[in-house]
Every structure is written in structure tokens, then in C-alpha cells.
């Protein structure tokens, strides 16, 4: 036991299973469970357990927010700006108020309020209506008269950087950024439409470049990608005298509750947020959003429940997007490959929002003593960007990993050999080894070496993502006298299957089957769980779930020990029974033990403790684990040099998420990450008309997405990587799986055709232009 008496010393499995496991000693809080053995020794954790809510999903029984219909529910609809930049001179909603179906009207953009009288993108909310039907709401919206004074606008990032460009904001109106943001940090200077730079620095870059034998330099450009959640953003707000209940398709019930309480001046105890089925978020459903605030305001005014459900065009224009970026990378290296300097400059645009940087990969992936970065946001008159699956690092890796590929060629080194020399991560080293074997890396030929018009190529790229943890994350476990078990938390299942993972976690403790555990989540009436973003859900909620279950089990052991006439410490739970450890034929069923409880129900609530070896950094409710999550992906492509069509034939994704909890669901998520990356690499592009500021493809057919026929064979390999950091030692997978795909494909395309594509998406036109077969399109 430690000197302070609050912890005990335990030995945890440690290391990568395929390399060989060792042990690591940690101090564990006294009220937390003993170390969880490696997956091979467990009954249900680490096994491909089917999704606990799978039956509901395949039968259509799952209730999504868009399926909620409350008695007396009204339909809300938002009037949106038709202009990319305008001053509102007057707005008259009286005729709309007089429409027989209308129950509430609110004005969002107010001419009399200097802070709210300017609209800055097409689709910006101007006013909203709640009516008895959607048809009535649409009719009434047309009755609102708005007098707009058009202002000059700019819808292109490069044009917006010019000193003479129309200004999107002035220093008073520009968004402020946030204290923990990078590069959306607070307090950065605004110069025209350019905000920043957010800088990073270590060592002396000038000296570093002087020490290098070679310098490579490249510019990379990435497009705007939209989230395209299949379930639109949706909310049903029910404002009542005794409190507010909100059904919302959200990635963070507890966070939305906080926002609602703050926005509407309500105590947390009077705000309830609920989500059952949640049809995808990918970052875009992290907060309350303007539509959420509008729905609640309409409900308050109408004294009735109000549903707002964005249509697909609204989704594409005003539900967030992954910012477009431009970056220039300079990398200096010695002949042996060792890096001497990295210099990064970036400009990105999140439209009217901040946060368009290219992340941390250039700074953190490789050993390099000298580094500098200057990242900038550029405002344009377009819908606000927001977090999207591995924000920053996705465009960042597209640049960095092509630059490293280029450096390897310059040094006449195999890209894997170069990375073995400059990448300090033992995780990625093992991932490279496994992936190279799977894809058949030794087949890789010189760039453009295939003789025919269809040229094949192999490429590799790596990823890095912080292992995020939510500290403000709690879970309750209950056992009833009839032996039934419940797990309760406000954590939401956005499709990643966290409910199933919780069932596995708790079943493992009790020696039960996962299907015997009832999962009640997605409701802020339960202990506040973590968000489903930042790949932190599993890392944040499974340790408290195991801890809470373990504490309840100790209570149950106490009852069983009395009956069995042994010490509680001599009991174990497995196979549905509570047994004496050294005399496994002595025991009773779990159900019989529960029947001995003095009360109908016992329970324990546990919250996320710190990682046992501490965190690298802590930021309010969140923290960053000491270890990063590494990934390596390999792509095999076939490029038709006559049509310009790139076919990705195979992807091998080797990923790390600490302890894999459910390999079946992890495989699903990794396949999804790879496909989203492939779709980003080849197809997706939010196209803005520069002359009107309007998105010309605000739908799901002209906004191109990879479909079943573009889906390659995807091999998913997940490491078992133990660190002894928490009660489950599990971390996230969603974002890491989305980072390396586009650069792996780009490197494979280079290997196929011998010409490097430095801009996304790699369309047939872009390929043919790169090959000099058609003129370059501006």
C-alpha cells in the first residue's frame, strides 16, 4: 500500500500482445478493482459480442429523434438567409404570425441589434416559425418580409486573404476562439480576414535546415468535406413550467444539458436531454447548435413541444463541415533520414467559424529537434465548419505523410525503412511490420513502373491521435434482488456500440453473459457520461462501469459469504455463479446471491479516475493520456491513365486503441473510418459558386460519396496494447481510423503513376491534369 493510504500497488499486463507482454506496476485507488487480465484470459471482454441494440435496429424499432412525436407537437422551420453577406434593415413577421397554423415566431437576426443584424452566409438563420404542420410552417415562412442590404462577400479562401478582400468580420464581431483551442485559440490577432497565426516552436529551425543534407518542400490543399449524417440534425423541445425536456440527436446529452441550462437560465436539475437511436454525428452533433436554441425558444413561446429537423439542403449548408486547408511543409533531413527541421505554414477556412488548422501530426509524429508552425484561419462567407472525425490531423496527415514519402524517395530509402528510423513509436513500428506483411509490401515497384494504361501502386501512411479521456464521466450499476442487472449513464450510442461494450464490461465483472445486462443510456436523468466525440467514449465510461460493478459485487459477496461461511475475499464470480475461489464446487448462483439482499436493489456510482500513471495534460473536464493512439494504413490502387479513374482495390488498416473491447464493432468502425477517408480522398467536395456564395451540390447525389461499388477490400488489424492505465485500459478508435487513409491512397497513386497529387479530391480530372493529358482546371 502506498504511503498516503489511498492507493495500493498492483501489477498490470503491459505491452503489445503480438510483440510480447510484460508487467507494469501501478498505484491503484483502493476503491477500484484489481487489474484486468489480458483479453485472452477473459470471458466476454475482447470477444466479438453482437450489438446489444442490433435487433431493434434491423427491425426498425429503434426510436431516433426524427421518429419522436409528442402529443400536440408543432413543427419548426427556420427562415435562412438567401444572401452570403447582408445587413438586415428591417424584418416584418406580422403576416406570418397571422397565419392560422402558426403558433410561435421568433426573429433570430435582429436589425436593431448591431451584434445580430448581419448575416454572413447563405443559410444563416434569420427567423423561425412553429406551426401545426410542416406545410403550414413552410407557407408561413414565405410571409416573413426581410429587407436585406447586400454587402460585398468573399467565398474563396485565396481571394479572402487578399488585402482588398471584402471583410467577413471586424475585430469586434469576429468569433473569439476558446481557451483550450488550437488553432482556434483565444486572443489571436485578426488581420483582414486572416486570424492568427497560432504558433508552435521547438529548437531552432534555421539551424536545423542548415544541418540537413536535403530539404523537401511541398504545398498541399484539401477541400471542404461535409458530415452527411444519415439522420439529419433534429431536436424535439418540450418546454414546461416544471422544466425542459429535449429529445435530440446529439453526441453529448450531458453537454447539451449544460448548454441549455446556461442559455435559458435553468437549473441543471430542470433540464433533461434524451437520445435513443442516434443516426450519426461525426463531430457535427457535439453541441446544442443554432437550431437547438431556436427549437427551445419556439417551444417556450408556443407552450407546446416543437420539433426541428433539418432537411438535406440545410444539413449541407448549415450543419458544420470539415474546413478546407492549404499548407506548406518544409522538411530538412540528413542522408540517413534523421530529420533536422520541420516548418509548417497553414491557412484554412471554416467559413464564418474558427478552427481550420492542420493539427498536430507535423509537430508530434516524428523525432525532429527543430520545429515551427504558423497556422491561420481565414474567414469567408460560407457556413461554419466544426469538428469532423479527427479534425486537423486528417488534412495535416495528407500533407505530412506525402512529404515523408517524398523524402524517402529523395533519400533512396523505402518509406517504411525511413519511418523505422524517424518514428519513435513502438506501436506504429509493430503496425508497419504487420501491415507490410498483409499488403505484400515487397511487391511495391518503382513509381509508374507498370507498362499498361492501368497502373497499380502501393502506398503507406501513418496517423497519430491523442488518447482523450473525459474526467466528468460517471456510471451507475444496479443489481436487483431477482438477479437482474442494469447499467445507467447519460452516455449515448451514436452507432459505435458503447452500450454493448458496457454490457461486456459489467458482465465480465459479474460472471454473466452480456445479454443479461440491461443497458439504459442516452438520458441525463442517469449519471453524467462522456461525449461521443474525440474518440473518448470507451476510454471514459468503461473504467467507471467496471469500477461500479466491482463495488456492487463486493456487496453481493458479503451476502454470499455469510451463506457460504467463507470470507468475502475468497469469492469469485464466473459462469453465472458466485464461487469459493479454491473450492469451485462450493458456491451459489448469482441469482441466489442476489435473492439474499436486504433491499430490492443495490447500486454503486463510479466516475472516471485519473489514468494510473497520470495524464499528460488536463483541460477542465477532459484530459489527454500519456500515450498517443497510432495507426498505419496501406493502400493498393489501380489508376486508369486514360480515364483518370482511381480504384482503391485494397486497404490494410492496422490500428491501436489500447485494449480492444469488442473486435467486431471495432472492425466496423475502422472500416467506416477508412471509407470516409477514401471518400474524402477521391470524391467529396463542397462546391461553392464564387459568384453567389451558394453551395451548388447541397444534396446526396451531386455531393459525391463513396458507395458499395467504390468499397475496396479492407483488412482491419487491431493491436492489443496494454498500458495499465485504468480499470479497463481501453481507448478510442473512431478518429484514428480516419486519418491515414487519404495520404496512403495519395502515396499509392504516386507509386502507380509517378506523379504526385497534392490536392484533394483526386478526381479523374485532377489525375488527367497531373498526367498532362488535360489542362489544369483553376
Amino acid at each position: 500500500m502506498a504511503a498516503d493510504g489511498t492507493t495500493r500497488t498492483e501489477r498490470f499486463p503491459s505491452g503489445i500482445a503480438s510483440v510480447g507482454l510484460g508487467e507494469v506496476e501501478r498505484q491503484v485507488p483502493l476503491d477500484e478493482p484489481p487489474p484486468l487480465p489480458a483479453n485472452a484470459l477473459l470471458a466476454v471482454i475482447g470477444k466479438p459480442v453482437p450489438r446489444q441494440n442490433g435487433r431493434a435496429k434491423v427491425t426498425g424499432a429503434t426510436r431516433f429523434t426524427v421518429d419522436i412525436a409528442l402529443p400536440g407537437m408543432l413543427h419548426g422551420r427556420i427562415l435562412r438567409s438567401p444572401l452570403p453577406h447582408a445587413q438586415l434593415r428591417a424584418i416584418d413577421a406580422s403576416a406570418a404570425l397571422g397565419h392560422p397554423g402558426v403558433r410561435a415566431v421568433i426573429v433570430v437576426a435582429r436589425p436593431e441589434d448591431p451584434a445580430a443584424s448581419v448575416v454572413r452566409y447563405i443559410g444563416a438563420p434569420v427567423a423561425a416559425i412553429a406551426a401545426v404542420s410542416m406545410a403550414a410552417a413552410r407557407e408561413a415562412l414565405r410571409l416573413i418580409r426581410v429587407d436585406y442590404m447586400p454587402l460585398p462577400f468573399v467565398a474563396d479562401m485565396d481571394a479572402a486573404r487578399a488585402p482588398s478582400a471584402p471583410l467577413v468580420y471586424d475585430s469586434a464581431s469576429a468569433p473569439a476562439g476558446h481557451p483550450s483551442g488550437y488553432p482556434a485559440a483565444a486572443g489571436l490577432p485578426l488581420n483582414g480576414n486572416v486570424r492568427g497565426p497560432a504558433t508552435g516552436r521547438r529548437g531552432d529551425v534555421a539551424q536545423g535546415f542548415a544541418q540537413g543534407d536535403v530539404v523537401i518542400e511541398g504545398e498541399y490543399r484539401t477541400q471542404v468535406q461535409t458530415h452527411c449524417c444519415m439522420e439529419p440534425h433534429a431536436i424535439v423541445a418540450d418546454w414546461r413550467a416544471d422544466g425542459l425536456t429535449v429529445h435530440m440527436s446529439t453526441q453529448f446529452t450531458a453537454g447539451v444539458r449544460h448548454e441549455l441550462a446556461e442559455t435559458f437560465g435553468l437549473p441543471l436539475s430542470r433540464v433533461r436531454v434524451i437520445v435513443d437511436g442516434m443516426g450519426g454525428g461525426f463531430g457535427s452533433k457535439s453541441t446544442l447548435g443554432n437550431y437547438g436554441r431556436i427549437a427551445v425558444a419556439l417551444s417556450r413561446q408556443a407552450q407546446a413541444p416543437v420539433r426541428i429537423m433539418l432537411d438535406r439542403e440545410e444539413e449541407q449548408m448549415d450543419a458544420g463541415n470539415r474546413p478546407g486547408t492549404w499548407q506548406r511543409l518544409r522538411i530538412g533531413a540528413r542522408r540517413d533520414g534523421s530529420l533536422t527541421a520541420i516548418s509548417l505554414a497553414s491557412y484554412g477556412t471554416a467559413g464564418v467559424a474558427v478552427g481550420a488548422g492542420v493539427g498536430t501530426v507535423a509537430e508530434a509524429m516524428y523525432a525532429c529537434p527543430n520545429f515551427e508552425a504558423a497556422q491561420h484561419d481565414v474567414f469567408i462567407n460560407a457556413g461554419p465548419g466544426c469538428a469532423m472525425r479527427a479534425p486537423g490531423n486528417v488534412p495535416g496527415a495528407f500533407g505530412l505523410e506525402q512529404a515523408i514519402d517524398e523524402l524517402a524517395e529523395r533519400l533512396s530509402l523505402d518509406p517504411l525503412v525511413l519511418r523505422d528510423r524517424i518514428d519513435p513509436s513502438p506501436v506504429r513500428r509493430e503496425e508497419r511490420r504487420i501491415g507490410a506483411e498483409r499488403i505484400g509490401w515487397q511487391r511495391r515497384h518503382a513509381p509508374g513502373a507498370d507498362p499498361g494504361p492501368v497502373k497499380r501502386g502501393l502506398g503507406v501512411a501513418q496517423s497519430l491521435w491523442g488518447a482523450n479521456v473525459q474526467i466528468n464521466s460517471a456510471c451507475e450499476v444496479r443489481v436487483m434482488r431477482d438477479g437482474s442487472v442494469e447499467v445507467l449513464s447519460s452516455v449515448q450510442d451514436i452507432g459505435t456500440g458503447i452500450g454493448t461494450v458496457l454490457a461486456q464490461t459489467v458482465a465480465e465483472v459479474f460472471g454473466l453473459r452480456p445479454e443479461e445486462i440491461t443497458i439504459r443510456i442516452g438520458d441525463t436523468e442517469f449519471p453524467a457520461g462522456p461525449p461521443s466525440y474525440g474518440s473518448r467514449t470507451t476510454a471514459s465510461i468503461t473504467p467507471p462501469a467496471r469500477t461500479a460493478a466491482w463495488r456492487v459485487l463486493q456487496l453481493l459477496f458479503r451476502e454470499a459469504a455469510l451463506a457460504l461461511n467463507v470470507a468475502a475475499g475468497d469469492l469469485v464470480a464466473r459462469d453465472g455463479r458466485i464461487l469459493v475461489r479454491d473450492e469451485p464446487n462450493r458456491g451459489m448462483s448469482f441469482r441466489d446471491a442476489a435473492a439474499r439482499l436486504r433491499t430490492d436493489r443495490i447500486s454503486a456510482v463510479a466516475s472516471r479516475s485519473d489514468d494510473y500513471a497520470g495524464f499528460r495534460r488536463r483541460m477542465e473536464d477532459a484530459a489527454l493520456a500519456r500515450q498517443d493512439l497510432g495507426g498505419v494504413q496501406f493502400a493498393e490502387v489501380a489508376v486508369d491513365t486514360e480515364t483518370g479513374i482511381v480504384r482503391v482495390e485494397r486497404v490494410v488498416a492496422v490500428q491501436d486503441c489500447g485494449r480492444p473491447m469488442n473486435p467486431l464493432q471495432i472492425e466496423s468502425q475502422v472500416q467506416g473510418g477508412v471509407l470516409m477517408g477514401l471518400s474524402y480522398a477521391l470524391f467529396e467536395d463542397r462546391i461553392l459558386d464564387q459568384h453567389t456564395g451558394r453551395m451548388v451540390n447541397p444534396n446526396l447525389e451531386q455531393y459525391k460519396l463513396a458507395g458499395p461499388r467504390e468499397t475496396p477490400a479492407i483488412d482491419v488489424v487491431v493491436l492489443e496494447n496494454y498500458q495499465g492505465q485504468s480499470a479497463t485500459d481501453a481507448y478510442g478508435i473512431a478518429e484514428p481510423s480516419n486519418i491515414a487513409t487519404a495520404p496512403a491512397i495519395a502515396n499509392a497513386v504516386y507509386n502507380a503513376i509517378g506523379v504526385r497529387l497534392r490536392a484533394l479530391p483526386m478526381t479523374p480530372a485532377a489525375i488527367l491534369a497531373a498526367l498532362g493529358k488535360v489542362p489544369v482546371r483553376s
Partner: protein
Amino acid sequence: MIDAASAIIGRAEGAESGGPAVSGPEPVPITLKVNGVTRTLQIEPRTTLAEALRGRLGLTGTKIACNRGACSACTVWLDGMTVCSCMILAIEVGARNVTTIEGLARGDALHPVQAAFIAHDAMQCGFCTPGMVMSSAALLERMPDPTAEDVKTAISGHICRCGTYPHVVAATLAAAKARKA
């Protein structure tokens, strides 16, 4: 394209029988045969089949994601043929049998495709899943022994942003195998 065509066929059938009188915009009574049950409802003629199912009939398993026939989330069967229910008006359905995701299982017994979707984790958020299941199940009705390419073609109109396509293909092939066994 199949879906748009079926909507036109519906209209053509109406025209052959003399054509409906001008109706609407007020609600009109119609009869729909859904999952073997005949239902009578009052709807505005502009109501799509998807809206009628999800609204008046309370069958919310059918999803609307794009509302213009681009994503196939709203796929149901009309006389066994898959259609985008957002692309056909409810009044055009006529006497055809509508099968929705709620009508696929037989009581507690899941359709083999549904069972295989669970076993192969062919879903994540689950929003596109009902439509995807309807297309996969329809494929097995007309082609009991499909190849992976056949499955990809059958579901090629569906958009799944979670990227479940590989597991959907695996599940559908497994369901075909299970039905033969």
C-alpha cells in the same frame, strides 16, 4: 432510377383506368395495404408514401434522409420490388402490397437477412439499416445465390455514412447461405 420508374408506372396504371379525378389539396381518403393489413387513411394528395408510413401509420422504421431518391434510406417493397418511398405519392400506390421493415420478421422470428445483419454487425448508427435490409432481403428473393458483386449492385443506391458496406455484403451472403441450408 428503378425507383423513379416505379413511381411513373404507378401513375401510368392510374391513367389506364381512366385516371383519377383531380383531387386535393385537401385530404383525400385512400387505402393502403401495408404488411398484409389494409389501412384506410386521410391524407393530402401531395403526401409521399414515406410520409404516410411514418406519419399517419406510425411505421417509423422507414427512414427519410435525403427525401429525393438519392440515398435509399426509405426503401420499401411494392409487390416485392424495392422502391424509394420518398419518390412515390401515397395515392399512387393503389392496390399494390407495401412491405416495410416492420413487416419483414415473422413474429419473433427474424428474416434471415436481419439475423445475419446482427451476427455480422452490418450496422452502426442504424439509420440506413432498415432500407439496406429491405434491399438485401429483396435481392435474396429474386436471386437466392448472389455473388458479392450482386450484393454490391443491389445496395449500390444506398448511402451509409458509417461505412457498413463490407459487413452488409458479408451478412447478405451469409443469409443466402443460411437460407439454402
